[in-house]
C-alpha cells in the first residue's frame, strides 16, 4: 500500500492502477476514532473561551455589590476606608496604567536595541548565549525580582537616580520628578516592570526581525543603503506589526504583574503626579488586602477591582491589537 503511494500517481506507477476502494478503506478505517478525536479537540478548544466567560461572570457577580453601591464613583474616588465602608479604586487604576506606561517607555527602546543587536550586529557565536541570557530574565520568579527591587533597585534609585533626575538634570521643576525621594515609588515599579517585560518584547522583536526576507534587505542594500539605513528603511518597517505585537505582549504582562510591584511601589492609596511618590496598582491592592477583607462590601470592592483590572487589560489588548491590525492592513502582503 505504502509502496504504491510512494510510487507516485497511478498513471506513472507500474502494474494495474490503484483501486479507489483501497485508499478509501484507509480513510474510513479510523473514522470512529477520528470522530472522537475531533470531538475532544473541539471540546478543549471551546473550554478556553468558556473558562474566560466563567471567570468574567464570577468576578462580575462577586463585585456587583460594590459596583452597584458606588457606581461610577468607584473609578473616580481615592478613598479606600474599611471603617467608613468607602471604597474607590482611582489610585490603583491610575497606578496600574502609569506603572505599565513607564515600563513600556523604558523597556521598548532597550528591548528593540537588544533585538537589533542580536539579529543584525552580534557575531554568530555571541547570539545564542546573549539571547539565552535575555530570555532567562523571563524565568526569574516575580518575588525574586521584588526582593532584588527592595534591596538593590530602591536604594539605588533613592540615592542616585532620583537626585540625579531631580537636581542634576533639573527635572524637579516638572511635576513628574519632584518631591522627596523615599525610594519605594511609581518609578521603582516602572523600572522593575521594564526589566520583567524586556525579554518578551526583545524575543518577539528578534524573531520578527530575523524573519524579514533576505530579498527585502538585499533590495535596500542594492540601492546603496548602509546596514543602518537598510535596518531603518527596510527591515524594521517590514517587521513593525510584529514588533508592536511584542510590545502588546509586554504590556499585558506589566498590567497584571503583582508580586514584584507590590514590594517596591509603596502601596499608598493616593494619586500623585510625581513618579517619586509611592502609589498602588490594582493587582497589588487585591493581593495585599484579600486576607484582611472584613466585610462583604470590602470583599466585593476587591472583586470589583479585579473586574476593572480584567476590563482594562481586555481593552488595552483589544486596542493594541486593533492598532496592529490597522498597520498590517496598510502594509499587508
Amino acid at each position, binding site marked *: 500500500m505504502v509502496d504504491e503511494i510512494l510510487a507516485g500517481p497511478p498513471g506513472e506507477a507500474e502494474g494495474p492502477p490503484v483501486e479507489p476502494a483501497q485508499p478509501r478503506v484507509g480513510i474510513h478505517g479510523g473514522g470512529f476514532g477520528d470522530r472522537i478525536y475531533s470531538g475532544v479537540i473541539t471540546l478543549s478548544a471551546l473550554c478556553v473561551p468558556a473558562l474566560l466567560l466563567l471567570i468574567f461572570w464570577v468576578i462580575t457577580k462577586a463585585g456587583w455589590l460594590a459596583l452597584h453601591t458606588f457606581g461610577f464613583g468607584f473609578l473616580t474616588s481615592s478613598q479606600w476606608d474599611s471603617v467608613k465602608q468607602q471604597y474607590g479604586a482611582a489610585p490603583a487604576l491610575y497606578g496600574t496604567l502609569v506603572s505599565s506606561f513607564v515600563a513600556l517607555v523604558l523597556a521598548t527602546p532597550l528591548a528593540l536595541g537588544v533585538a537589533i543587536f542580536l539579529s543584525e550586529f552580534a557575531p554568530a557565536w555571541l547570539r545564542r548565549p546573549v539571547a539565552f541570557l535575555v530570555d532567562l530574565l523571563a524565568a526569574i520568579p516575580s518575588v525574586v525580582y521584588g526582593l532584588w527591587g527592595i534591596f538593590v533597585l530602591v536604594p539605588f534609585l533613592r540615592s542616585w537616580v532620583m537626585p540625579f533626575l531631580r537636581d542634576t538634570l533639573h527635572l524637579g521643576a516638572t511635576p513628574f520628578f519632584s518631591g522627596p525621594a523615599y525610594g519605594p515609588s511609581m518609578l521603582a515599579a516602572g523600572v522593575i516592570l521594564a526589566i520583567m517585560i524586556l525579554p518578551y518584547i526583545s524575543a518577539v522583536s528578534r524573531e520578527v526581525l530575523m524573519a524579514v526576507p533576505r530579498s527585502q534587505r*538585499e533590495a535596500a542594500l542594492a540601492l546603496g*543603503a548602509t546596514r543602518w*539605513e537598510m535596518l531603518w*528603511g527596510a527591515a524594521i518597517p517590514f517587521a513593525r506589526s510584529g514588533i508592536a505585537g511584542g510590545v502588546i505582549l509586554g504590556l499585558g504582562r506589566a498590567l497584571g504583574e503583582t508580586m514584584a510591584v507590590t514590594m517596591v511601589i509603596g502601596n499608598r492609596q493616593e494619586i500623585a503626579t510625581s513618579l517619586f511618590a509611592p502609589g498602588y496598582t490594582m493587582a497589588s491592592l487585591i493581593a495585599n488586602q484579600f486576607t484582611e477583607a472584613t466585610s462583604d462590601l470590602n470583599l466585593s470592592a476587591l472583586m470589583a477591582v479585579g473586574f476593572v483590572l480584567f476590563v482594562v487589560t481586555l481593552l488595552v489588548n483589544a486596542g493594541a491589537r486593533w492598532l496592529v491590525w490597522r498597520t498590517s492592513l*496598510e502594509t499587508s502582503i
Partner: protein
Amino acid sequence: MPASEALARARADAADLAAQPARMEVRELNAHFGVVHAVKDVSMPIPEKRVTAVIGPSGCGKSTFLRTLNRMHETVPTARISGTVLLDGQDIYAPAVDPVSVRRHVGMVFQRPTAFPTKSVRGNVAAGLGVLRSVGERVDVDERVEEALRRAALWDEVKDRLDVSALELSGGQQQRLCIARALAMNPGVLLLDEPTASLDPLSTEKVEDLVRQLREDITVVMVTHNMEQAARVSDQTGFFLHGELVELSPTSQLFTRPGDTRTEAYITGRFG
C-alpha cells in the same frame, strides 16, 4: 539572412563592441559559497552603453556573477571572492572602496519584485534618494520619481496612485517599480537579474523596450533564461556553464555561429 550578410553583421558588431570603452571589466573572477565554487575564473569586458546578456542553464552561476559586479555577493555570510572587477578603471574590491558607494553607481534589479511593502509607490521609488541626500547630493524627489517612473514605462499607469501601497500594483507593475527605484539613483551601470521572469508578454515587451532605451545612456548587464530576449536586446552575450564563461561573443554571432560546441548544444536546446 544569407550567411555572408550574417557574417558581415557579426563582424561589424564585434568592431563596434571593441571600439566602445569598457565601463566595467572583470578579470579572473572566482566566487564561492562555502565549498561551492559558483563562478570560475571569469574574465569579461563590459562595454559602455551596450547591453551585455548572460545566459546559461539554471545553477550555472549567472546570478552569482551578476552579484559580484556590485558587491552584493559578499552580503551572503559564507561568500568568498577573488579576482578583480574594474569600474571605470578602479577595482571595486580594493580595500579602500566602500561597497555602499559601489552599489550607488551600479544599480540592481532582482529576479522577483522586491517592492517595500510598507511604502507607497512614490516612497518606493524615492527609497534610495535619502541615501543620495545624505552624501550631499541635491535631489528634487518629485521630479526624480516622475522621471524614473516614466523611464520604467510605469508613469501612465500609476500617476494617479502615487500614494497607494506598492502592494496594490500587479506583479508586473511591481517589477517595473523596482526598475524605477533603481533608475531613480541614476546609476551608470544597471544589473538586471532575469527582470522579466515573472512578467506577462506585454510587460516583458515594455521592459525590453526600456532596456533598449537605457542603452542610450547607461551600461546594462542582464541575466536571462530567454534566448530570444537576449537576441532581441543585447549587444554581446556571455554563455555560462558550471560557473565558467564558455563563450563571450557579439550577440549576432553567438546565436548564429557559436564558437563553442557547448554553446551550440545549449542554444539549439540539446541540454540546459
